[in-house]
Every structure is written in C-alpha cells, then in structure tokens.
C-alpha cells in the first residue's frame, strides 16, 4: 500500500455496564488513553471518525466531543454501515492520511447499548426494519438470533458439526477472556455449562451468544513519518479488503446463496491478503467478529485457514488456541469480551495491536508479526478484513 499508515496508540474502557457515565465520558476516556499510548497531543488530531451514536443524535455528538476536547478537526464523520462501521471509520482515517491531507486521525466508538436497553426497548423489535418486509420481516422481529440459528443448523447439516463443537469455541473464547482485564465475562465454563445453558433458538444457547454491553475504544492513526518520530512500536496497516454480497441477514432474492458459507468474508479476505502481499498461512494471530459460537467455525473457514467443516477438527486439536496453528480471538472474542456492537472492531484492533507490540500478557502469541482483524455487518453479508504488521 502507498503512503503507509500506522496505528500508534489504542485506548479502551472495561466492557460492561456504565449507567452513570455519558457516551462522551466513555469516548473521552478511550481517546485520552489512546493519545497517551501514542505519545501525541490532542492538538495533533486532524481527522476524527466515529461509529453510530445509538441515542440517534444524527451524527452531531461528534461536534460536542470536539468542544469537550477543544479540538478543530479538518475532517470528521460519523460512519454508519452496520457492524463494519468501525472498520470503515478506520478506512476513512487511513484514506485521508494516504491522500496526504492529514497526518493524524483518531477513530473511536462509544455506546451504552446495555444501559439504554437498545435491544429491548425499540418499538418494532430491533432488526425489524432490516429485514425484507415480505419474506422475513413478519416473523423476523424481536431480534436476530433466529437468523444465526438457521445458519448454524444448515452448517450442522452440511458438515456434521455438533452443538458440542460450537460449545468448544465458546470455551476457547472464555479461557482467553480470563486474561483480559477489559472483558465482561471471565468465570470459567465447561462444555457441559454451555450445553446446559438455556436454548434461545436451537442450536444457539445462552453461552453460545454474545451479550449486549456498554463500551468505548479508540485508535490513533498516523502517517509513516509521524509514526516513526513519535512511536517506538508502530503497527502498520498493511492490507485491507471489503466486500458486500447483496443481501441483508438471510439472502432471499433467489435460492442460490449459502447461509453457512459467506462469500463476503472470503472476498474481503482475498483482497486484504493480496494488498498485504501475504498468504493466509502467514497470519500469526486473528480477531474474528462472530456474534454466536457457530460462526466462530464458519468465519475462519471462509477466510481460508481451513476447508469447510475443517474447524471441527481444528477446535478438537486446539489449533485456534494460543500456541496453535492460528490463534483466534485471544482477547475473548465477542462472546466473552462482551459485545458493544459498533465498538467491538476497535477492541479487536486493539487486541491485535497489543499482540504485535508483544504486550498481550498471558495470551501473547510468541513472535507475532502479522495480525488480522475481521468485522462484518448484517449476517456476514458485509465484511471488512484488515491486515496489521509490525516492522
């Protein structure tokens, strides 16, 4: 990639419930920590990009935040595109730096979806207006777990995966989260615990699911020139891919699209590997955006690390654990880190940056040089894949 862009600092707050703190408070705390790690002053912020404010402030909460921080960015925007918004916010910052318009951008997200009851208090049921009104909407209200459950059951039919395999992904994530001070869920769980947890929509159970939580995180992007002057451990964005396979949640226009293999993931990953000039096997550590445990199996297969159904054996052999062939979600994943949905990709990015800087603590992957961040929107209909690398 031309005009290289580095991530020079990340900041985050603990994921959980923050009923007594405004979104702006959480955002400022994440940005403060990120700037501190980046060793750079707030006055250097020329670009500011954020994810949707769930309180529907029509994009203007970013203005307030600038006043609270007394900064005047040349470029700023609230980016909305489902759960790839954070990936696109990073892309916007990258673009402005690559074009030579600015040297430093901050990308952040802050949301309190648990404290404002985002998923339970919306009138039609969250997801209502996202579904095709004829083919999905009447029955598709009141959440989206059913859609992931249809996908999971189809995957079981095609690969022979059992519920226990999904549980193994939940457990790997939980084990990793236990060493993450920002994670919301850190008590140990077993396969039996997952299997005995309440069935929400067969085969998805409570402990196969990510939980709605509050959170805030920020990353500081810089041009190569600035990065090398202020940071002794810059992590470069070396590859980037995005793809949308036309559909939203369940593809209904035609019968030819799979709900257990997702083209968007594969194409975005191919593009990212190509732009980084690497093969999938060169990735040392990865963060994938799986809201439910069955998709912890599908996404790594679609990225290209395993054949379809290959994640079953990979989980049994521990190949996605720290020390395995491709350690995945070493920070706990969406299931155990907790899932403030717009902000999650910033936590994922932070996790990979920590790995590449050798600062991942107990879950450090030895010698990690190349990392991958995947995020998705709809039910894996959109995908963004980013490759990060250290010098």
């Amino acid at each position: 990639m031309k005009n290289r862009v580095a991530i020079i600092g990340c900041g985050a707050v603990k994921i959980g419930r923050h009923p007594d703190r405004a979104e702006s408070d959480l955002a400022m705390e994440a940005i403060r920590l990120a700037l501190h790690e980046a060793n750079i002053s707030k006055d250097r912020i020329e670009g500011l990009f954020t994810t949707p404010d769930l309180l529907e402030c029509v994009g203007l909460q970013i203005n307030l935040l600038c006043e609270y921080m007394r900064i005047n960015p040349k470029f700023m925007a609230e980016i909305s595109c489902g759960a790839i918004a954070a990936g696109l916010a990073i892309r916007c910052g990258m673009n402005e730096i690559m074009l030579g318009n600015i040297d430093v951008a901050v990308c952040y997200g802050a949301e309190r979806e648990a404290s404002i009851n985002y998923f339970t208090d919306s009138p039609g049921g969250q997801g209502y207006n996202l579904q095709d009104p004829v083919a999905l909407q009447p029955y598709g209200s009141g959440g989206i777990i059913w859609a992931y459950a249809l996908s999971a059951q189809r995957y079981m039919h095609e690969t022979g995966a059992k519920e226990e395999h999904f549980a193994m992904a939940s457990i790997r994530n939980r084990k990793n989260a236990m060493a993450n001070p920002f994670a919301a869920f850190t008590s140990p769980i077993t396969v039996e615990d997952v299997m005995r947890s309440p069935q929400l929509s067969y085969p998805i159970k409570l402990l196969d699911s990510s939980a709605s939580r509050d959170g805030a995180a920020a990353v500081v992007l810089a041009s190569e020139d600035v990065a090398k002057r202020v940071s002794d451990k810059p992590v470069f964005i070396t590859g980037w891919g995005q793809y949308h396979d036309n559909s939203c949640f369940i593809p209904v226009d035609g019968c030819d699209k799979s709900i257990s293999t997702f083209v968007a993931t594969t194409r975005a990953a191919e593009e990212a590997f190509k732009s980084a000039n690497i093969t999938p096997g060169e990735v040392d550590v990865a963060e994938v955006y799986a809201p439910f445990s069955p998709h912890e199996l599908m996404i790594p297969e679609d990225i290209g690390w395993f054949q379809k159904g290959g994640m079953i054996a990979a989980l049994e052999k521990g190949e996605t654990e720290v020390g395995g062939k491709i350690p995945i979600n070493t920070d706990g994943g969406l299931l155990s880190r907790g899932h403030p949905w717009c902000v999650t990709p910033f936590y994922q990015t932070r996790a990979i940056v920590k790995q590449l800087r050798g600062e991942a603590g107990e879950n450090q992957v030895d010698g990690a040089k190349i990392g991958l961040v995947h995020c998705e929107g709809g039910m894996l209909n959109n995908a963004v894949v980013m490759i990060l690398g250290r010098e």
Partner: protein
Amino acid sequence: MMNNKPNCLRPSNLHYPSTKEFWEGLKRRQLLTKKCLPCNEVFFPPRSHCPQCLGNDLEWVKLSDKGTLHSWTQVNMARPEFDTPYLLGLVDLSDGLGRLAGKIVGAEAKQLKIGMPVKIVYADVDEDFTIYCIALEK
C-alpha cells in the same frame, strides 16, 4: 408443545401500493410475486422496482406454493407478544426465485429434515392481515 398463535408482526409495507397486492393475495390463499414487463424478469420477494433492469412497470403473477426446507430452528426466546416455543423454517420456493421465513405449523421438531418438501399455507391474523405459514407435504 408448540403453540398456535400467529407469532408475527404486521409488515411495514402492508398498505404500500407497490406491495399491497401480495398481502391481498394471501387473503385469497394465493402466493403472488412480480414480473417486469419490459425485461420479463420474475422476482421474489415482490418490490417496487425490478432488481434486474430497475424498471417499475410490473405485473403480478402467481407463484407455486411448494418448496423445500432450507433450514429450521425452534425459537424459545422472542419478543413478549410472541408465544414460545415455536418452529421457524426457511423455505426455498420451488420456482427457485427466492426464499421466505415462516412459522412451521402442524409439525413437531423431530419430524423436520433439511431438504424435505414443504408447502405454504395461510392464516388469517385479523380482517386486514393474512400471513403465510409453512406446513409439511403429506
């Protein structure tokens, strides 16, 4: 024990001119979709514009009410006005034009197999709104 409530909400386009006839068709026990007059594309779900040529000169055509079960789930947790548990299926319509998700009626989970033939049946929710459901082929 599965319950017999409709477990669906009124769709946002029930009275829109571009889709009203689909919902009217369900009242007459007909599954309808749209055909584009300039380009002859028949598509499902019916919408305001042809997805192929983006034209909006469209006519209604009948669709087969047969299909195959692409996947299914038993929903145990849903919005408060839905009664649980219930079975939800995703159907590949046999014309191959598209899919829909609906409540499976008159069957238990143990009878369901992915790929099995199913048919669309109809349930009157109230005077204004009839919904499609999924039943097993006998």
